[in-house]
């Protein structure tokens, strides 16, 4: 369940994050402002509060959403704000000569972003993105607060039915997270290695 949550929120965060980063760097002034407000808002509200707002908010207006969907939405929106900042930093670190050369060839603004800037920015973002992955992986346990049956909640079930197992259950959860983080960062590290450009940067 936690992995499904993680996949959902990272995916949502990625798509929104890339879009917002592009708007923040290349968008017209008004959209740039909107993007900045967006990242400010979603980086300001405590996650647990955001979860509760997204979960209880719609039901006030008669819209019932599942706890799982609410958790993906709340955590995904939050993650998109952080991911947007990672991608923005990467986009801005690309020398302006790359854009000039692309435009001089006759590529449109969008073509330049798509074929020249984004591929470079995503590669530069990997290390920061790995950090975001490690953070949000643990945030999936917060979904527990709105009733998603995730790993923390299951540990609580076990603990409440069989008190002596409390500590072992929690230790088991901790080990699961250790393993998941290790595995995730391993995959990202491999990806970094594969996408390394010969001659361009220092080896890890």
């Amino acid at each position: 369940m936690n992995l499904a949550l993680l996949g959902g929120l990272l995916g949502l965060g990625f798509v929104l994050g890339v879009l917002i980063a592009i708007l923040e760097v290349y968008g017209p002034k008004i959209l740039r402002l909107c993007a900045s407000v967006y990242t400010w808002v979603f980086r300001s509200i405590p996650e647990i509060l955001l979860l509760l707002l997204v979960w209880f908010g719609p039901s006030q207006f008669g819209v019932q959403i599942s706890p799982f969907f609410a958790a993906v939405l709340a955590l995904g929106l939050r993650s998109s704000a952080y991911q947007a900042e990672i991608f923005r930093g990467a986009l801005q670190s690309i020398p302006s000569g790359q854009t000039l050369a692309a435009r001089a060839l006759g590529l449109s603004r969008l073509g330049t972003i798509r074929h020249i800037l984004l591929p470079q920015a995503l590669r530069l973002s990997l290390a920061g993105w790995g950090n975001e992955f490690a953070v949000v992986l643990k945030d999936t346990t917060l979904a527990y607060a709105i009733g998603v049956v995730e790993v923390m909640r299951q540990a609580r079930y076990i603990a409440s039915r069989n008190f002596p197992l409390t500590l072992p259950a929690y230790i088991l959860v901790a080990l699961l997270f250790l393993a998941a983080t290790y595995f995730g960062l391993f995959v990202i590290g491999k990806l970094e290695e594969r996408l390394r450009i010969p001659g361009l940067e220092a080896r890890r």
Partner: protein
Amino acid sequence: MLLRVVDLHKRYGREEVLKGVSFFLEKGETKVIIGPSGTGKSTLLRCINRLTEPDRGRIWLEDVEITSPKVNINRIRAQIGFVFQDFNLFTHLTALDNVRLGLMRVKGMGKKEATARALQELARVGLADKAKAYPAELSGGQQQRVSIARALAMDPKLILFDEPTSALDPELIGEVLAVMEDLAKSGMTMLVVTHEMGFARSVADEIIFMEKGVILEQGPPEQIFYSPKHPRTAEFLRRITDLYGGNR
């Protein structure tokens, strides 16, 4: 007339960089622009494909007005090669991908055809064996030659060179100039900003001397180098030869 520039003006803040520049270029001609740093030579080149928007003045490429607001500037740029001082190769792409990107993404050519064409251009600049290399694996001279191949692949009507050898180590300048000389001989139309006076003297059909945003003098190399009409031209050439030595 292939390129016609009329009364071009450009201002950055309070500083007027171009103060009414006019000249033209015939098909197959090579013109070299010389002059002190900061006199608007690079700005002039960038105004020609509107990487920089001119404030006033008009530019025609054959019978199409580049400065018209109705023009599709991307289509114009695809016909004008641009070679930058610091190469600006796409760092995430191999030499081959750098050269075929424009063919595939701007001209919509298929991969197979684009690859063949790109390899042909790489061979033309002497880098057929470096197709798979990334820019960071190439020397400055090799990078600049790839960037020339990138421009050539688009079949441009004209190539603009913005100080193409100024970022290179002295021993690498020759290989780039040799490629440019071959190009000029093959009939390519070229407009070159450079401090390489030897190249200007031996390759240019005409030399344009610019200072402080205006063209002070233009004429064949013999006139500019041996009997300049403007005292500033003579002074500039004297300073350049003092700086770099007489044989350049």
